[in-house]
């Protein structure tokens, strides 16, 4: 997927002015935070589980090569074909080849952020395939030609009215007199359309929340059941997962499952959690005839030896963005690529380069809520700061800003100069602002005064007054 992250500021401005988007964000986002809080309160072991989850992933990452080999062995034993994809292009080619060999015409898809990352849909469509997203949120944006704006609620930015308008515009068989006011009616319409696709698909592609080395299984979680229909009905099932989805055992998956839904939506568990191992067995009356697992690297292995390794613990719950003041103000599209919010701010520079993605780690107040709610204890603000450090060392920080910082730094390093300077400057500023108490405009401070008044300084600095105080001069 092409990135528009360099246009972050313009994207954000557009998002802030988008009344439809703002309404959608204000209706959905606060609820997700509240529900997670309630779910956490309902499970006393939650914090201890976070620590366990972190340990499981850290151990797995430290032995990732061996767990991948073990997974491959067991998955192959169960009848799957395992393919490794070093790059996005490899993944596209491998999957297109599988579809070609299967003589596929229709492909259904469960939700997969990885498939967004590698631009799978466009590639398969270019090869003449009909690709149908079956996760309702993904379907809603697919028919609009949009990309997901949230990693678990991809259509969070759409209002009900927009959905109705889209259905009327695009569902050819939809009669004009059909009532589509209630969400139930809209869902029923989507269910009807997609059921046909489920039943006629030749290939079903799903992502994976986890890959389990012990058994060679892949795990998906949904509330809709679309992932299951995607992987059970067609002749061919393809699992597309990235390398860091690996966990060692079923028990390890239990720990992560206890954290995932609670962090994502506040549910105790997703309605459907499915463990799949290979194609249909002898005697199975249903299930795919062939199962392929495509394991993608696409730059993740390079993170393993760096400080950014910790971001590979992510289990894609979306809690970070649900709690982020920046994400909840601008939505996901402003981030310009596949992964939005705090996780996107750390992962995007890693996968497409800090030069293209520079705004993302910078557009954070470091409030720390993301790290606080991350079930895998990823130190997201710290990792964003690392990106800022890389940017600074590379000389990529905007020039004006760099110069301002340099000026401030050179003065701050010299207390005597600093104090002499501010001792002179602040009383002047203070006098200018004394009548009103605040500045509505101030040269060099437009970034501030554009939206806020700037408090006038009281006048003399604390150090100046303190020196007087010590000398016995009354205040």
């Amino acid at each position, binding site marked *: 997927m092409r990135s528009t992250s360099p246009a972050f500021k313009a994207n954000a401005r557009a998002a802030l002015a988008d009344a439809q988007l703002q309404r959608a964000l204000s209706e959905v986002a606060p609820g997700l935070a509240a529900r997670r809080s309630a779910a956490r309160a309902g499970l006393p072991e939650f914090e201890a589980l976070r620590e366990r989850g972190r340990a499981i992933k850290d151990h797995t990452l430290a032995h990732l090569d061996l767990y991948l080999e073990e997974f491959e062995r067991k998955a192959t034993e169960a009848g799957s074909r395992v393919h490794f994809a070093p790059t996005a292009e490899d993944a596209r080619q491998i999957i297109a080849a599988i579809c070609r060999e299967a003589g596929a015409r229709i492909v259904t898809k469960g939700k997969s952020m990885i498939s967004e990352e590698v631009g799978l849909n466009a590639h398969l469509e270019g090869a003449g395939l009909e690709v149908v997203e079956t996760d309702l949120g993904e379907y809603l944006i697919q028919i609009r030609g949009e990309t997901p704006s949230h990693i678990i609620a991809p259509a969070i930015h759409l209002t009900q009215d927009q959905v109705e308008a889209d259905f009327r515009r695009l569902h050819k068989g939809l009669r004009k007199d059909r009532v589509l006011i209630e969400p139930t009616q809209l869902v029923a319409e989507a269910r009807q359309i997609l059921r046909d696709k489920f039943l006629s698909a030749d290939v079903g592609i799903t992502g994976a929340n986890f890959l389990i080395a012990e058994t060679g299984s892949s795990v998906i979680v949904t509330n809709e059941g679309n992932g299951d229909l995607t992987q059970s009905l067609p002749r061919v099932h393809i699992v597309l997962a990235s390398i860091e989805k690996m966990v060692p055992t079923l028990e390890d998956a239990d720990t992560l499952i206890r954290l995932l839904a609670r962090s994502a939506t506040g549910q105790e568990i997703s309605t459907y959690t499915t463990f799949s191992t290979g194609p249909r067995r002898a005697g199975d009356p249903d299930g795919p005839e062939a199962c392929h697992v495509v394991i993608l690297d696409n730059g993740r292995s390079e993170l393993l030896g760096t400080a950014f390794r910790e971001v590979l613990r992510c289990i894609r719950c979306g809690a970070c963005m649900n709690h982020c003041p920046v994400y909840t103000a601008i939505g996901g599209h402003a981030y310009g690529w596949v992964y939005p919010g705090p996780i996107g701010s750390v992962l995007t520079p890693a996968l497409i380069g800090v030069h293209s993605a520079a705004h993302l780690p*910078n557009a954070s107040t470091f409030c720390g809520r993301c790290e606080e709610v991350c079930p895998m204890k990823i130190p997201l603000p710290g990792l964003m700061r690392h990106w800022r450090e890389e940017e600074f060392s590379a000389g990529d920080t905007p020039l004006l800003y760099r110069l301002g910082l340099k000026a401030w730094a050179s003065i701050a390093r010299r207390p005597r100069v600093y104090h002499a300077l501010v001792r002179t400057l602040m009383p002047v500023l203070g006098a200018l602002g004394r009548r009103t108490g605040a500045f509505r405009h101030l040269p060099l401070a437009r970034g501030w005064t554009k939206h806020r008044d700037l408090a006038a300084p009281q006048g003399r*600095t604390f150090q100046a007054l303190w020196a007087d105080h010590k000398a016995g001069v009354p205040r």
Partner: protein
Amino acid sequence: MGGSAGRPRVGLFVTCLVDLFRPSVGFAAVKLLRDAGCDVDVPVGQTCCGQPAYNSGDKATAEDLARQTIAALEGYDYVVAPSGSCAGMLKVHYPVLLADDPAWKARAAAFSAKVHELISFLVDVRGLDKVDARLDARATYHDSCSGLRELGVREQPRQLLRTVKGLELVEMGDAEVCCGFGGTFSVKYPDISNAIVERKAERIAATGAGMLLAGDLGCLMNMAGKLSRQGRKIAVRHVAEVLAGELSDPAICERP
């Protein structure tokens, strides 16, 4: 070690914002510390904690300022700052910054152990459980992010505020949600910062409070600036000012 007659010696890290914009907060802090039985000094070798540089990726400058700050203040029994974000920088991030410097690693760790945010110092270390202040007002309190998440400052200011005679404390919705300041963020991404502070202003106004308090001057200037621009008549002060009864100066952005 130890000041006059067993009184602990506190080195006050006054913070650049207080020094430059609102010294009354510094004096309020001094009063509170003295009333809590401490001797207070404010060494001149301090300027800025280095957070603007640190958060901009300029580690070299941040390290220099860290060494400077430690050198100026490590000789005291305690180092106290009227700011959760500056105290957090000194306590949590200095040891990380200087971890690879063999000459400074131990000094930074020892220094960190002495650092406290002002209100949590008064309550958790000095055992203060009430103040002798009065203010007839309805106030709401904003939890600044660093103080809350890095240093666990949440109950302590509320505890003390509840002992201020005449003060009614009301909680705002989303008190723990960021105000949108984020230091340089507020000027680098002003439109997003504005969207966040507008939301915060709504929460503040919804309490019906006539006063907003917090423990960080950056947050306070951000919120006061927004409330003022919106023409809302809500007095904004640092919590230390109210606890010390230092209310003679106009509130932040208040027309005198």
